[in-house]
């Protein structure tokens, strides 16, 4: 299953709904291009909804990290929403769970962007 990404705006936060696999090749490229497009439009509060992401490999993990650092370096913020157990476990063993701000509720995740300043 190839990856799909769609974006929507909620209270100044861009929510990117991702589905499919974030792996070397198409999935990683779609994520990279999506983040680049958002930053190009100065949409720097980004919430990646991974609820329908079935699979991530090391390339996909790397792409998530690159997205995080790219957005932060441009003064924005990137957070994660709705991790599946598989993705949660991968972030846990790679110690990235402590790097990303991870939420499982969209409303509170959106609200966290404004309270974080």
């Amino acid at each position: 299953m190839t990856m799909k990404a769609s974006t929507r705006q909620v209270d100044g936060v861009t929510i990117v709904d991702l589905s499919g696999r974030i792996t070397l090749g198409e999935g990683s490229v779609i994520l990279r291009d999506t983040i680049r497009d958002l930053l190009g439009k100065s949409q720097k509060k980004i919430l990646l909804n991974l609820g329908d992401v079935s699979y991530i490999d090391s390339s996909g993990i790397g792409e998530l990290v690159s997205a995080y650092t790219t957005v932060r370096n441009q003064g924005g913020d990137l957070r994660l929403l709705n991790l599946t157990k598989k993705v949660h476990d991968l972030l846990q063993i790679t110690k990235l769970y402590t790097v990303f701000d991870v939420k499982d509720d969209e409303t509170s995740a959106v609200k966290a962007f404004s309270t974080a300043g």
Partner: protein
Amino acid sequence: MRPYAGAGGNAAIATVNTTGKRVSYTMDSTLDSVNRTEELADKLAQESGFDEDDRQRIALAVREAAVNAVYHGNHYDPEKEITVTFESGESGLIVTVRDQGTGMVPDEVPDPLAPENLLRGSGRGVFLMRAFMDEVRFRIVDPGTEVTLVKRRGAATDHKEA
């Protein structure tokens, strides 16, 4: 994808009793080969009786080995191929992935868990192989690198951190 036609004997060091099935494939250095290798690993792991969690771990580890072979080893060179061998038996599964690159030294890959490396965009493939399999061995061959991945049935290797 073609059945392996090469000579050279069994390069894998059998640490589990795999008196059952042994199949080899040679494949082009493409992403399709990576995906196909992952699918085969999942299928063989299922046939070998591994549960859903272990199947996913095996498939991901084997995918990482295939990515290393196709991308880091062969650099997508259409003149180069990868050879993937699956040996399954009652006590487990052995997978070897061999490329035709210049040879990889895994010890030179920085520790992805070190604080200074946590935000690197790459370098987690070997770590995930080691986290999800019971044994991972690298061997420089001529030409290329061969990685052997071993998963024993019933071994408790959940999320060990290398």
